[in-house]
């Protein structure tokens, strides 16, 4: 049964000449799980906001949206508010009130529903999401993942038929993200809730979604049953890059047959089509030869306050000159803290940190930042001070010819008006302006599409080859596998494992790339899709003889 219908919808933002949305029409059935994908700036968010009447931005809009056969503009406010739920990217800012229970009740309060009914619905939802333990906590105590779950729950108490999510997992770590997606598909199955979700990380969502909507420059490129769309996008490089590993592997061979989506299907596909006579690629490994140490943590302990628990517990590691060192680990494991200690923003209460062989205590004020290292914080908005991009760059006396990439297109925009990826690049530009020897990056790729990730990755490589040392905290295993020289696993304030990607990821079972999960036990030390493809090619030719 058709629940939602969009008829050649177009939208133009004020003071913009090109359309952000251009003649889009599609229809959604009850119980669909639709993933909307496309490059940054292709109009996903805009489209989502057109469907949720209350959030439609200022600008001129043509075309119509129907909910259960009725134009949404003819629906009563209460109806639209209740029956179409919306969850957006940033968990923090969507929360309105200060207590979890109050947040859950908020929507129902707005509807003027009687207290006892509110109480019933809220308690029901609380049980469904299993969040009793923090029912009475105040919101500021929750982790990012919990906050986003709370947002979802407090939309669900309104009992919507359609749920719209705009990059809900962008700020979460892989584990929290996959939990969140799992919850979504559970809702979809249990309540036959219609879900429309935009994502850049497709690894998790594609398998659970039954339809895929591919967008390009405000237009629909493809819309239909997931497998078919995925298969039909085979030639399109932009989309292929963002697809799950299984799909990318499938696409790099011209075998036909159903396209695998999940890791399991991928594994089946590999085993049924490729022998494993050649088990591993010969290591081309010049990396871990001895180099000079630029950053050294020796037995560092740190906590934020006397009464609080230790955040860094005997942290102990070395980073060598001219390498990209990626740190991974769950939310709250202390990665950001580690970076800020490395940047001398916090003093450890025991153990010491050496930057370029010199104790961090011995650096004079700001001398540390002027010459040696520079930190890109997790929340890049904290580095923006001015009203335009141009002023931002002038503020740190950085000029375009010095930058490894070009921002001149954005000079007149306000730093808050540019896309997430562009904000990352702008912040990075400010950080680079101090021409540091050591570059500390905290999750530089969050909320970016595959293309922007590649761009940042290549920039890092270039800087690395220029002799800069890059230490990068990331949740993005694929990114780490692709670009890191060494990876480290952070757990409860210490580094539990560390090594070159191939060995590092082969060592992990869950916290590893999909390519590795697909091939482990069949091939050895395969981490990236390209490696997988390479070894499969070799086996194919072997098999042919």
């Amino acid at each position, binding site marked *: 049964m058709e629940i939602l219908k969009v008829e050649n919808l177009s939208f133009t933002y004020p003071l913009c000449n090109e359309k952000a949305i251009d003649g889009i029409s599609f229809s959604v059935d009850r119980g669909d799980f639709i993933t909307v994908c496309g490059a940054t700036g292709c109009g996903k968010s805009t489209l989502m906001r057109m469907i949720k009447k*209350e*959030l439609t931005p200022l600008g001129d809009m043509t075309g119509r949206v129907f909910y259960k056969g009725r134009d949404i503009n003819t629906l009563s*406010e*209460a109806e639209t*508010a209740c029956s179409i*739920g*919306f969850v*957006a990217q*940033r968990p*923090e*800012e*969507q*929360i*309105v*009130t*200060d*207590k979890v*229970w*109050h947040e859950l009740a*908020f*929507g*129902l*309060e*707005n*509807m*003027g*529903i009687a*207290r006892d009914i*509110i109480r019933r619905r*809220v308690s029901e939802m609380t049980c469904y999401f299993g969040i009793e333990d923090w029912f*009475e906590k*105040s*919101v*500021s105590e929750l982790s990012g993942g919990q906050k986003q779950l709370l*947002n979802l729950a*407090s*939309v669900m108490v*309104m009992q919507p038929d359609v749920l719209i999510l705009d990059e809900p997992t962008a700020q979460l770590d892989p584990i929290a993200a996959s939990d969140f997606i799992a919850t979504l598909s559970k809702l979809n199955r249990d309540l036959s809730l219609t879900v429309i979700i935009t994502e850049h990380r497709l690894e998790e969502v594609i398998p659970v979604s039954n339809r895929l909507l591919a967008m390009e420059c405000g237009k629909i490129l493809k819309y239909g049953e997931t497998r078919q769309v995925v298969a039909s996008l085979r030639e399109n490089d932009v989309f292929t890059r963002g697809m799950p590993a299984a799909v990318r592997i499938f696409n790099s061979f011209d075998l036909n047959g159903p396209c695998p989506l999940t890791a399991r299907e991928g594994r089946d596909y590999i085993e049924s089509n490729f022998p494993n006579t050649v088990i591993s690629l010969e290591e081309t490994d010049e990396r871990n030869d001895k180099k000079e140490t630029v950053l050294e943590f020796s037995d560092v302990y740190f906590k934020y306050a006397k009464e609080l628990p230790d955040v860094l517990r005997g942290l102990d590691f070395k980073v060598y000159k001219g390498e990209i060192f990626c740190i991974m680990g769950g939310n709250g494991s202390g990665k950001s803290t580690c970076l*800020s200690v490395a*940047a001398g*923003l916090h003093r450890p209460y025991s153990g010491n940190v050496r930057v370029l062989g010199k104790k961090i205590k011995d650096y004079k004020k700001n001398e*540390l*930042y*002027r010459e040696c290292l*520079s930190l*890109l*914080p997790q*929340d890049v*908005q*904290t*580095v*923006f*001070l001015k009203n335009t991009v141009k002023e931002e760059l002038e*503020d*740190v006396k950085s000029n375009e010819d010095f930058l490894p990439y070009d921002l001149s297109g954005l000079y007149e925009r306000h730093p*808050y008006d540019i896309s997430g990826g562009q904000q990352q690049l702008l912040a990075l530009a*400010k*950080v680079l302006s*101090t021409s540091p020897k050591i570059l*500390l990056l905290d999750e530089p790729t969050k909320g970016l599409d595959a293309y922007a990730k590649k761009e940042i990755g290549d920039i890092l490589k270039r800087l690395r080859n220029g002799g800069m040392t890059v230490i990068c905290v990331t949740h993005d295993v694929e990114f780490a596998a692709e670009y890191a020289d060494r990876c480290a696993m952070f757990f409860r304030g210490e580094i539990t494992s560390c090594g070159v990607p191939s060995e590092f990821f082969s060592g992990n079972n869950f916290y590893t790339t999909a390519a590795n999960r697909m091939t482990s036990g069949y091939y050895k030390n395969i981490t990236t899709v390209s490696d997988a493809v390479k070894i499969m090619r070799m086996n194919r030719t072997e098999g042919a003889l």
Partner: protein
Amino acid sequence: MKAFDNYNPITVFIYFASVITIGMFCLNPVTMNPLILFLSLAGAVTTYLIRNRTEGAQSHLFFFVMFILLTVINPLFNHNGVTVLLIINNNPVTLEALLYGAASAAAIIGVIYWFRSFSQIMTSDKLLYILGNISPKFALILSMTLRYVPMFEKQTQKVIQAQRGLGLYSDTDFMSRVRGGTRVFSVMVTWALENGVITSDSMTARGYGITKRTFFSIFKFRRQDIILSAASVILFLIILAGVISGSVNFKFYPEISYAGTTVISVITYIAYGLLAFLPAFTESGEELRWKYLKSRI
């Protein structure tokens, strides 16, 4: 469990309103009855001690010193009264003024202690509950603000560190601290306003402002609440009647004089004693009940 924690905020409010009102009502030259004032002080301090037994002990010292000061300052400025104790540069220091000082000090510090307990018990969410019954909208804004404050404090720290990490923020000398501070503050403003819009989106998305809001809360009004509020109100009325009837009047100036001990005055005193020590009673009542229940198991 600590005194009053598991009572309904409205009950708590009624209680403190009545006890404090009396405390203040007697804070004037006519009905400034030492007995009532010292009952108030004693009750207030006891209540405070019940909640936080030994912690913050030094604050008591501070208030003790304050008490002494208030007591001795009055006779230095106020020269009414007949019983002259001594003369300081030909101004008389009178016994009445001294006692008056002591009494008013007791009153003031009593009220302060009542409020100390009050602010401890009346946490922000309880206050919100009360306001929510008067004006849901105001309660909502308040609740939003209460959420923003810790959030902004965290963000401020983040901004300062980010700026430091870029070598743009230094707090070596005072002026640079001020400059840095204002700089950070203006970042905060931009950030707050921008992200506030997201919040407002999520409010509209959940149908804010469509109809008149109800105000949901997790507090219940139980039997114990009815009893306690009733008790407070009744005692309050009795005392008020007693005070207004003038039978507990107490004059310091020109010389100490008070309405004689009558039935009414005694009743008033007892009533106020009860009122002032209600928390102590409920507390020990709880204790006993638990002991009893334990013994039955």
